[in-house]
C-alpha cells in the first residue's frame, strides 16, 4: 500500500486545546454526549414498546412471526460486518495507509447500502401483505386482535424507519469521509473524523441489535 505524506503539520492541535491528547478527548466526549441524547430518543420508543409488549405479550409475539427472520438476521450480520470494516478503517488511517482506508470506507458504505436495500425489500413485502398501518394504508391482519397487532407494526415501522434515517445520515457522513480520504490533506484530523463517525456507525449497530431482538426474535 502506498502512503501519501501529510501536507500539514501532524503535531499541532487546534488553538483552543493544549495538546492533541486533550483535543482527542474533547472530540470523543462530545460524541459520546451526542450518542447519549440519541439513546434517549430511541430509549423513549423502546420504553413505550416495553409497556405494550408487557401488556399484550401473546399478540405481539404472534405479530412478530409475520416479519422475515432470515432477512432480519442477514441484515444484522451485514451491519456488524460494516462496523468491523469501519473499525479497520480507523486503524488504517492511524497507520496512514490511504488506499486501505479508502477501501474499508467504501466497503462499509456498500454494506450499509445493501442493508437499506434489504430493509426496503422487507417493507415492500409487508406492504404487499397489507401489514403496513401507516400513512392511511390498508391494514389487514390475518390473526386475532388486529387492533393490538397494528400497535406492534406501528412500533416496528417507527423503530426501523428511524433507524434507516440514522443509517442514511451515517452513509452521507461516510461519503464525505471518502472525499476527505481521497484528498488526504491532514491524516491526524481525518483520523479523528473517522473515529467519531465510527462511534456513530457502531451506535446505529447497537440500536439495531435491540430492534432485531425485540421485533424479530421475541416471537411465538
Amino acid at each position, binding site marked *: 500500500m502506498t502512503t501519501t505524506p501529510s501536507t500539514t503539520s501532524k503535531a499541532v492541535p487546534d488553538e483552543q486545546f493544549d495538546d492533541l491528547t486533550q483535543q482527542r478527548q474533547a472530540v470523543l*466526549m462530545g460524541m459520546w454526549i451526542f450518542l447519549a441524547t440519541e439513546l434517549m430518543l430511541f430509549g423513549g420508543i423502546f420504553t413505550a414498546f416495553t409497556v405494550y409488549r408487557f401488556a399484550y405479550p401473546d399478540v405481539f409475539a404472534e405479530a412478530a412471526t409475520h416479519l422475515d427472520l432470515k432477512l432480519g438476521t442477514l441484515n444484522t450480520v451485514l451491519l456488524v460486518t460494516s462496523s468491523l470494516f469501519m473499525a479497520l478503517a480507523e486503524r488504517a488511517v492511524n497507520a496512514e495507509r490511504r488506499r486501505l482506508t479508502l477501501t474499508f470506507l467504501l466497503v462499509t458504505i456498500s454494506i450499509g447500502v445493501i442493508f437499506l436495500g434489504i430493509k426496503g425489500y422487507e417493507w415492500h413485502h409487508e406492504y404487499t401483505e397489507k401489514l403496513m398501518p401507516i400513512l392511511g394504508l390498508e391494514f389487514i391482519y390475518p390473526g386475532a386482535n388486529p387492533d393490538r397487532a397494528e400497535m406492534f407494526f406501528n412500533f416496528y415501522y417507527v423503530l426501523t424507519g428511524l433507524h434507516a434515517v440514522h443509517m442514511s445520515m451515517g452513509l452521507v457522513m461516510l461519503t464525505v469521509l471518502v472525499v476527505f480520504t481521497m484528498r488526504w490533506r491532514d491524516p491526524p484530523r481525518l483520523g479523528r473524523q473517522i*473515529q467519531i463517525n465510527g462511534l456513530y456507525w457502531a451506535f446505529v449497530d447497537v440500536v439495531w441489535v435491540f430492534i432485531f431482538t425485540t421485533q424479530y426474535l421475541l416471537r411465538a
Partner: protein
Amino acid sequence: MKDVRAPILAWGAYLVVLGASVAATLLAPGLMGHIFSLLCAAILASLILMFFMGLRAADNLLRVFALAGLMWLTIMVSLTMMDYISRDINECPNAQADDVAINTQECPLDSARSSDKS
C-alpha cells in the same frame, strides 16, 4: 496496522452469539427463549461497545459518560414499568361490554384509558 486482531475476534464472537440467539428463538420459542435472546442482545451490544466503540481502551471519564446514558435509560424503563408491574393490568373494570366481547384475552391499557376518561 495495530490491534486488528481484537475487532476481528469480536466480530467472530458476535456472529456466534447471534447464531445462538436465533437458534434459541427457533428451537425454544416462549419465555425462556425470549430471556435468552435478550441476554444475547446485551452481550452483542457489549461487544460493539467494547471493541468497535473503543470503551475497552477508553479512559474512565468516557466510560462514566457511556454508563450515565445507560443509567438514565434504565431509570426511564424501570420507573415506567414499575406502574404496570405493580398493579393488575389484566383487570378491565371500566371496559365497554363490546370491547370485552371483541378482545377476549386481556385489556390492560384499555382500562388505563378508561380510568383517564373518568
